[in-house]
């Protein structure tokens, strides 16, 4: 039995975990659910020794343990199956299986591998190269390695992301077998269906705190309420602009890019629309935006801009990781404006200074034309990006427009976007925050596993419906 008592974890001023308790019995599957940023990953990293807790105690079979290093966790029999398998792609399946094995005899290890494969119904060729395998198969190799090492506590982080239905069934069967043999299993997931079909007990985390705990049979409504903040009384949504002609159309667009790809997406975005993309991180929203902008080419299907007769629809894309993907570190505010605008071929130290100064005033950016992008705070970086959007832009695509911003900067950003929604254009933004979408957008698209599960005007759906769709229920 592993027991965590009153676990706190603080990163600088950020409280990632605040007094979380968790008890996992041998021979049971314990679910951990919660939104992005709820603290699930932090908790698991503490359990596997990758990060140390600020305070709290952990006991394992009644003995208090420190869990300061991954080695310690491993020697105690705590093993984790990561969302992105930690393996050596260039090596063979057998080599990967043998990694860190106490017994390094290839012939014997191959027998062990064959026995385990048979037991769980996996079909793996020992000589195959790991990088040729699917995510699901790589996961199977990892899982068997953990089982061989007599893992007593098995942690799985979103194990069904990116694997096939068949592989999922095999995995679930394997997990049930392991449970019946006495392994304590912790399943981190945001999919309620998985929790229902596998778990004996579930803990809900929200904002680093324990928001609920249930035994089987689960009460779905209670779980959802614990997972998501309750909806505050709806603030008056901005007056709906007149919906115009279609500005962007995707016909059966599919791609394998991103964590889960995009499957058969059919969407039309119209002039005057403010569309919010909901979904857990990596459910396809980013890929959707990148395809809409043209950074990615879809592998199948067609993206068209029906209104553009001759003139191309001017698009802009504001990525979530502003400094790494949107701005150019080392270049100044002035230089960013020179790059974004129509500048003459020859430049002087004064070129673009007036534009930059105007932008600094209009957008209240704390800086001078000579301030480099990396010296700006997150909010000011976002203001700079917004100030770079040209007047003619007709399709404004944003990824997490308020990520990392304080409340004031966030509100300012929304106000600005609403005020600048072009008559003949549209704004599409992805946000992990359902409230933001319900408040700001006129239409919501919910992404789940690379598909659009729900496409509704926000006044014809509910917070509950959207949050269910995020977890894969329609």
């Amino acid at each position, binding site marked *: 039995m592993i027991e965590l008592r009153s676990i706190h974890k603080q990163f600088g001023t950020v409280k990632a975990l605040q007094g979380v308790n968790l008890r996992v019995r041998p021979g049971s599957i314990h679910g951990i659910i919660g939104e992005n940023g709820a603290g699930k990953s932090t908790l698991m990293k503490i359990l596997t020794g990758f990060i140390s807790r600020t305070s709290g105690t952990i006991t394992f079979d009644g003995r208090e343990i420190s869990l300061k290093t991954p080695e310690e966790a491993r020697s105690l029999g705590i093993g984790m199956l990561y969302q992105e398998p930690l393996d050596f792609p260039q090596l063979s399946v057998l080599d990967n299986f043998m990694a860190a094995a106490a017994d390094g005899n290839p012939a014997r290890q191959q027998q062990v591998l064959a026995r385990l494969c048979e037991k769980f119904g996996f079909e793996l060729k020992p000589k195959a190269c790991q990088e040729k395998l699917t995510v699901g198969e790589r996961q199977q190799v990892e899982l068997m390695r953990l089982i061989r090492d007599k893992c007593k506590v098995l942690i799985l982080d979103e194990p069904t992301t990116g694997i096939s239905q068949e592989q999922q069934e095999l995995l679930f069967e394997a997990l049930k077998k392991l449970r019946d043999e006495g392994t304590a299993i912790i399943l981190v997931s945001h999919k309620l269906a998985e929790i229902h079909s596998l778990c004996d007990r579930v803990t809900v985390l929200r904002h680093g705190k324990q928001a609920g705990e249930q035994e089987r049979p689960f009460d779905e409504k209670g779980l959802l309420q614990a997972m998501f903040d309750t909806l505050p009384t709806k603030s008056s949504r901005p007056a709906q602009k007149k919906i115009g002609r279609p500005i962007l159309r995707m016909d059966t667009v599919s791609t394998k890019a991103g964590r889960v790809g995009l499957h058969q997406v059919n969407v039309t975005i119209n002039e005057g629309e403010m569309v919010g993309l909901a979904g857990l991180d990596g459910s396809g929203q980013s890929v959707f935006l990148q395809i809409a902008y043209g950074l990615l080419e879809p592998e199948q299907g067609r993206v068209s801009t029906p209104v553009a007769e001759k003139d191309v629809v001017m698009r802009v894309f504001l990525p979530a990781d502003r400094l*790494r993907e949107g701005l150019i570190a080392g*270049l100044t505010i002035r230089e960013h404006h*020179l*790059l974004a605008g129509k500048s003459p071929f020859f430049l002087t130290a004064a070129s673009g200074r007036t534009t930059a100064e105007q932008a600094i005033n209009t957008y209240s950016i704390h800086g001078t034309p000579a301030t480099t992008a990396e010296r700006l705070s997150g909010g000011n970086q976002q203001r700079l990006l917004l100030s770079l959007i040209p007047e003619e832009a007709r399709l404004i695509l944003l990824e997490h427009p308020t990520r990392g911003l304080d409340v004031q900067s966030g509100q300012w950003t929304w106000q600005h976007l609403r005020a600048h929604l072009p008559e003949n254009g549209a704004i599409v933004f992805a946000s992990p925050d359902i409230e933001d979408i319900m408040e700001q957008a006129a239409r919501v698209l919910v992404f789940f596993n690379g598909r659009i599960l729900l496409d509704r005007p926000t006044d014809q759906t509910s917070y509950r419906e959207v949050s269910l769709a995020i977890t894969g229920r329609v």
Partner: protein
Amino acid sequence: MDSSASVSRAGSTLLQVIGIMILAAGAVCLLLIALDFSPTAIVGAMFSGSLTSWLKFSQTLSIWVPLLLCSCGLLFTFQAGLWNIGVEGQVVMGAIAATILLRLPETTLPPTLILIGSLTAACIGGSLWGILAGLLKNRGGVNEIFGGLGLNFVAQGIILYLIFGPWKRAGIASMSGTDIFARDLWLSMPAGWRVAPIALILAISVFLFSLLLLNRTRFGLRVKAVGINARAAQLFHIRPERYGLLAILIGGGMAGLAGGLQVIGVYHRLIPAVSSGYGYLGLLVVMLAGYKALPVPLITLFFAWLAAGSIQLPIMLQIDSSLSGVIQGACVLSALLVHGLRSVRQR
């Protein structure tokens, strides 16, 4: 606010340069003492060997010209975020392209025209060789380091083939190169000079051109943006591949010009070692300069002085001239160390 920031930046750069020099000088002195040489005697010999007369100084300048040209070319590729290791090959192809025109059968064309033509051909030869590496990267997914290195070997093979094959001297083929060109196809050089004034003027013009293009044009800004963050540059409607290719085209052209000038102005024939490692040395120069244009002429002058001065070492002190390589290496390592320490401290 603008100017005070730039003053403090200039100040910190100056401090850094002083740090590098102290560190490099210290390391070299220690090394020399360990090898039982007197540092002062060596520096003295190098000074008297290179700075005591115009003839000797112009010898230094003749090394400065190709090194400055290669370094200017590398400024563009480094700014675009590319490791253009193929400069050597670009120099060689420039030299070959220049030689093709110089070896044309007797014509009535005025020599000046042939010279201008062959220098142009040298630029084009170097550019094409650079673009090849760029296309290998853009279209074939071959990293420019490997592509450039591979192309260096190919260029070296081609030049050896030409010198020992189709272009060999009447009767014999030798490492000393092709037949010497007709006198009127040499760049004119005043008596007491070891460097052609035209070559000097060209090198300085190329440097000024680079300075202007990189720091005072939209093109330069875009190249810089691509080099820092190609992904973000795309959002500014800049195509990274295109600017990378343009940068390597310009860089290759400058390296090719260096090759052409070596053939026309220095050796007056095509020799196998026409590139003399200036391409690789240029990489070090630009790194030392912190990828900025302004310090490049001085740093290249310093390296040229080291190379020219060290020629005196065997004559005056019976020390092999390869010692200059040790000094060069110590300087570069010191510079990298100072840069590295600074970024470690900033983390």
